[in-house]
């Protein structure tokens, strides 16, 4: 039971929030400032946002939290059928969680451990009872990741910190969609489940000028994932004709092994923060995800499926960036209020947009409140994600139409300094 509870907390059901399927919301305080915290990250969640920031922490510190996410997506089309036909994806409700621990080993050397989900994706269209119009493209897609990220931060100068970390990234993927058996005009369903892990690293630096101006920069490497022992399932309804049933069994093995490779993108960014007063600071961050590494989804099957042992779907994502602005105002020794705005560029080119990732440019508005009492901190945040309506044409699947989407996020984080 305990193991299940821990898994529920640490293996969050996933969602898509930032460009592509990256997740940048890993702490309530940071989330309430639209993630614009690279230059002034100074709590344990800095392990994710800029590990150099943990060099400012003393003793043992812990921070953990969770985010409740409610996503809504819809699609109108496809234009080559009914340009007005609206399908709403099943609303998503997710609770990704994070955990950070730091320890100042020496005055200038701090160690940290972060556990979080840097990438995630979950879309669910239609149902078995009510299949949707894009059933052959995607019905249920889930990617869940869990990064275990130990870091070490060093402060060679009073105003300079650098950090290095390695991450072990575990990933679980489920891809479901329907398949079509043209010779007999029959639908079946396919499901690919796989998990794997890969290694990466992250770097961070923070520098302060004139005591008021803070600079930060980060780099997170790409992570290659090889899902080599996946299980592929093909399920067809039993027909009234035994010959047809045999044909289906010959064309679509009920179960076979599937292998796929996926490279999660590198990311890098810079941040600039300024303390207007002792209590008021503003930060602007520029963050890039190198999504161009994701050029295709190739799945190789151990046994032929519909006569093929390999399916290749071009993705051709492009590098995308986000601009983040975050404001923090300490009202008194206990309360802090925060707000932020971020604009996130799409990573999927128009012709490659498809229902498993109904992505587009996003405007994000955030607000939050922090409370500190002695060594104890509580941060709460609300994040409104409004995705620009995205009308796509000339898509490679000839599935043109308009995607709409938005999400509400509510985050709560607790911190304690020992």
């Amino acid at each position, binding site marked *: 039971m305990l193991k299940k509870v821990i898994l529920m907390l640490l293996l969050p059901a996933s969602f898509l929030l930032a460009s592509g399927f990256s997740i940048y919301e890993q702490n309530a305080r940071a989330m309430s400032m639209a993630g614009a915290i690279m230059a002034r990250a100074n709590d344990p969640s800095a392990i994710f946002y800029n590990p150099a920031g943990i060099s400012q922490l003393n003793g043992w510190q812990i921070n953990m939290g969770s985010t409740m996410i409610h996503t809504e997506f819809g699609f109108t089309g496809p234009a*080559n*059928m009914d340009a*007005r036909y609206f399908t709403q994806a099943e609303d998503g409700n997710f609770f990704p969680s994070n955990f950070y621990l730091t320890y100042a080993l020496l005055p200038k050397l701090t160690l940290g451990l972060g556990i979080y989900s840097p990438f995630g994706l979950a879309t669910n269209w239609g149902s078995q009872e009510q*299949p949707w119009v894009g059933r052959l493209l995607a019905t249920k897609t889930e990617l869940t990741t869990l990064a275990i990220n130990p870091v070490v931060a060093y402060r060679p100068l009073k105003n300079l910190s650098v950090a290095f970390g390695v991450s072990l990234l575990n990933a679980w993927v489920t891809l479901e969609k329907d398949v079509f058996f*043209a010779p*007999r005009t029959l639908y079946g369903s396919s499901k690919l489940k796989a998990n794997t892990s890969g290694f990466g690293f992250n770097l961070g630096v923070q520098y302060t000028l004139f005591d008021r101006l803070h600079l930060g920069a980060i780099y997170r490497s790409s992570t290659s994932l090889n899902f080599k022992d996946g299980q592929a399932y093909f399920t067809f*309804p039993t027909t009234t004709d035994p010959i047809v049933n045999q044909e289906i069994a010959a064309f679509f093995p009920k179960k076979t092994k599937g292998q796929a490779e996926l490279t999660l993108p590198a990311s890098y960014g810079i941040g600039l923060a300024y303390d207007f007063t002792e209590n008021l600071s503003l930060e602007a961050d520029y963050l890039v995800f190198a999504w161009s590494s994701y050029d295709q989804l190739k799945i190789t099957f151990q046994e032929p499926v519909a006569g093929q042992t390999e399916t290749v779907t071009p993705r051709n994502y492009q590098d995308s960036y986000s601009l983040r602005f975050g404001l923090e105002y300490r009202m008194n020794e206990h309360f802090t209020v925060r707000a932020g705005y971020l604009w996130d560029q799409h990573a999927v080119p128009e012709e490659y947009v498809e229902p498993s990732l109904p992505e587009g440019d996003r405007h994000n508005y955030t607000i939050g409140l922090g409370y500190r009492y002695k060594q104890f901190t509580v941060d709460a945040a609300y994040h409104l994600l409004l995705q620009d309506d995205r009308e796509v044409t000339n898509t490679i699947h000839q599935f043109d139409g308009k995607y709409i989407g*938005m999400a509400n996020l509510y985050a709560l984080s607790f911190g304690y300094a020992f």
Partner: protein
Amino acid sequence: MKIKILIIVGLSLLLASCSLLEPKVKQSTLSANEKLLFSRLMALGDNIIAGYQSAALTEKHQKRSFVALIAQQGETPDFMQPYIGYPGLGSESYAGYGILRLKYLDDPETPNTVNPDPVIVAEPFADYPDFDPAGQPFVSDEVMFWPLPYNNLAVPGIYVDDVYKATTRLRSRSKSGLLDVILRNPLPDPYGYKTAFAQAKLFQPSLILCWVGMYDVLAYAQYNAINPVTEPPTTKKDFATYFAALMDSLKSTQAAVLVGNIPDILDMPYFHTVPGVVIDTVTNTPVKDESGNTIPLVGVEEGDLVLTPARVFIRQGYGLPANFPKSNGQPLPEDVVLDKNEQAVVLDLIEGYNTAIDSICEARKIPVVDMYSFFKEISQGTEIAGFKLSADFITGGFYSLDGVHPSDLGHVLIANEWLRTINDNLPVSVPLINVPEQVSQIAYSDSLLVKP
């Protein structure tokens, strides 16, 4: 302080109530005026528009023809077609057979084939004693004695001028046996002997869909053992003359008219399924000589297209080199081979026909549905909403078992092409067909699946 906190909390709660703004209109519906356009829908033409599929015309596929689907989308009242009973009438009927059926996707008697070798059989009339192909081939008396002209008066196997000239098989240029069935001549008074167009005109149609001309060239290119075509194909000049006369006739009805142009028939699987080389019957892969080269069939030159019926001759030993045990020493008959010159004739005719269709329709402001481009797109391999389509025989999804006429799925896609052209050219916005849903219904109506 408390007030500030309350403001923040209140603002958060306000924002938290944000939810997706769904469109007010979630599905297209027809207005009364749009229904009016489809209220007296009429179809004229030849094979595909009639709903001919897998070498026969039969109710099962007529009901899934693209015209029937357009009528469904346009909510045409009392839409009636000349529904033929199962196994239907078609190219095999002279020999006592109806529609083709896929018996096995991969012949169980040759289990070691690398490439599947399908077994396709024609349904014998003898197995369907209730079906009366010569007397009353319709599914019911209601259909046969339908008091109005059928909404779909397209007749498989006719030529362009037959639409407005032919009253019976004998009084036609094409000699299509289905003329007598579909036109029901002599019609009872006051109709008398009427051509397809004349019957359509009597119906006072609101919208006429016309797709004709493919058979003018197909008859020349395909093989017909029992009723071989001996006349040369319709010339480009004659086609233009006939087509212009037909369009003038259609326009005289005051109905809205839509016309399809001619696909490149040489892209169809009928011309590509049988390779021009010797095939190993055990593995269903090309036999190779000592140098590793494939061995051409005797009577087939490089660049020739071997027609699907050649398979029967090859089984009898035709075309096999003399050193093969099953060879009968005879080359493959030229009737089942389309050489380069013949291919050039076909392509030239199609180009000429389509040029004529474009200019004639443009002059008369008749919208043309570009079936040539659509079929070309299919032949090059395409994907529509996850349906992977190609001109591959059986597995390509678009063509039926005769390798020429589209399948049920093909008809759904064609219907959407026609509907799109209707929407683009007429003051209507008719919802196109939800392809996956329509295809789902086919599986159930074929009795392959039992609804839970």
